[in-house]
């Protein structure tokens, strides 16, 4: 698909919201990606998985234009994110919603004002209409009753739901979830899972999900990519991935402590290091 001739370009655009083409990125001498290629399909839930430290969050930063790749391209809606001006990037971001790991609510504003924030910054809508939109969004995450609370008064799960309502406020085409399940109790997790699926199916939003919670991904994602060593090592339907031939994929999907991803951080020989002190 990546090598499709330009005549079929519009067709390519309509199917893939995000195309990551042969991206290399390194920071502080450490290589994060070397030749990463993946596509995010429109209207589906795509999960990005991988062991900690494989650059899942870095990938989100690349897609949202917070950082630029050393090599390769990241195309969002067919446009190279790294080449956009600040204004164009902001225009693009208005069509993306992002859910941060801890919610990242603005702590000096209450729940209502947090959800209203993007509307107040980007639109000149009359107050009754803003109120209407905010309450509708809060209703959809089940927190209309919490509109007057401050972020400090919310539990982790509630904060994430408010953040989801805020991400939805501008009716984005794409929602990005950074570790949406981390540190949540099973009930909150179930709520987020249900909301995620609902948003995706009811509103046709493209969802990108970064996580390493294999069980949750299996139930919610349409497609998953597993990253390791700066590349995509496997992709496909989460159920199929569990039965993958690759040892690494099986290790990750089934949570086995030792395997291709070693239990031990690289270290000199244990005996040598212990005896070195004796000498």
């Amino acid at each position, binding site marked *: 698909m990546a090598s499709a001739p330009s005549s079929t370009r519009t067709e390519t655009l309509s199917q893939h919201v995000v195309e990551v083409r042969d991206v290399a990125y390194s920071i502080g001498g450490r290589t994060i990606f070397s030749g990463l290629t993946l596509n995010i399909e429109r209207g589906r839930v795509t999960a990005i998985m991988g062991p900690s430290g494989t650059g899942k969050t870095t990938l989100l930063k690349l897609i*949202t234009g917070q950082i630029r790749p050393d090599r390769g391209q990241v195309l969002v809606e067919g446009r190279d994110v790294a080449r956009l001006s600040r204004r164009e990037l902001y225009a693009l971001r208005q069509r993306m919603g992002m859910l941060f790991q*801890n919610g990242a609510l603005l*702590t000096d504003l209450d729940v209502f004002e947090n959800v209203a924030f993007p509307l107040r910054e980007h639109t000149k809508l009359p107050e009754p209409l803003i109120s209407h939109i905010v309450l509708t969004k809060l209703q959809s995450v089940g927190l209309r009753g919490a509109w007057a609370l401050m972020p400090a008064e919310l539990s982790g799960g509630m904060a994430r739901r408010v953040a989801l309502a*805020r991400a939805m406020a501008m009716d984005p085409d794409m929602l990005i979830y950074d570790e949406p399940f981390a540190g949540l109790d099973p009930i909150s997790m179930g709520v987020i899972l249900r909301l995620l699926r609902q948003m995706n199916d009811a509103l046709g939003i493209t969802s990108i999900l970064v996580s390493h919670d294999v069980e949750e991904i299996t139930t919610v994602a349409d497609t998953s990519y597993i990253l390791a060593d700066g590349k995509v090592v496997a992709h496909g339907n989460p159920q199929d991935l569990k039965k993958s031939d690759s040892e690494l994929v099986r290790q990750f999907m089934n949570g086995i402590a030792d395997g291709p991803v070693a239990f031990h951080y690289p270290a000199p020989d244990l005996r040598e290091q212990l005896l070195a002190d004796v000498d």
Partner: protein
Amino acid sequence: MSLARELLNSTTQVIAKMGAVMLFLGRILGQVPASLARPGLIVAQIHNAGALSLVIIMTCGLFVGMVLGLQGYDLLQRFGSESALGTGTALALLRELGPVVTALLFAGRAGTALASEIGLMRATDQLVAMEMMAVDSVRRVVAPRFLGGLIAMPLLTMIFVAIAIFGVQLVGVQQLGVDRGTFWSQMQGSVKMSDVTEGWIKGCVFGAACTLVAVYEGYTAAPTAEGVGQATTRTVVISAVLTLALDYILTALLL
């Protein structure tokens, strides 16, 4: 040799940091027009930096004034010129003590609050979240705070000076018995508008410097508890040194 190299290294670092701060100032100034279009945000920051600093500024002003009254009286009565107490202390307060002490207190109260607030917004992803909502964090967060500090500081300076002069008269006139009429009339006769302006200008410059240091340190803080702590410490230290250094330069220019 290594000492010379270290000296060279730290000098380059200081110069690089000054450059970075100036670039940051440029970014802030570029957002000032957009910020002025939303006065509500600036008023809230004047409240944060100014109104919330009032108690400490006024208390310290009163004590500084009372000490000046004691010391000034003791000094002047050796020459038999207690009547110059009002003039001497008013000039000292307006031109030097008022702006400098206010700036030091301002850095300790408002500067640290700004640095830690913005640093924590950085550490909890709030600034990135804003950027992801296509909102320029310098325009929305930094510029209103900078303007708020810039406006609050000269006002605080004048309030400090007024309260301190009240403190001087409390000790000098009420307690030690300097003649009330001479105290006020001599002050009125010899304090010129240019003295008030000097204090005002210093207040504005120190306000800009201290607020700029605070918002810069907060904005560039490492996103950890340690990073925010360091940013707060640096804010106080740099603000204090900068205030005193700028004070010398301004005094030399204005005299």
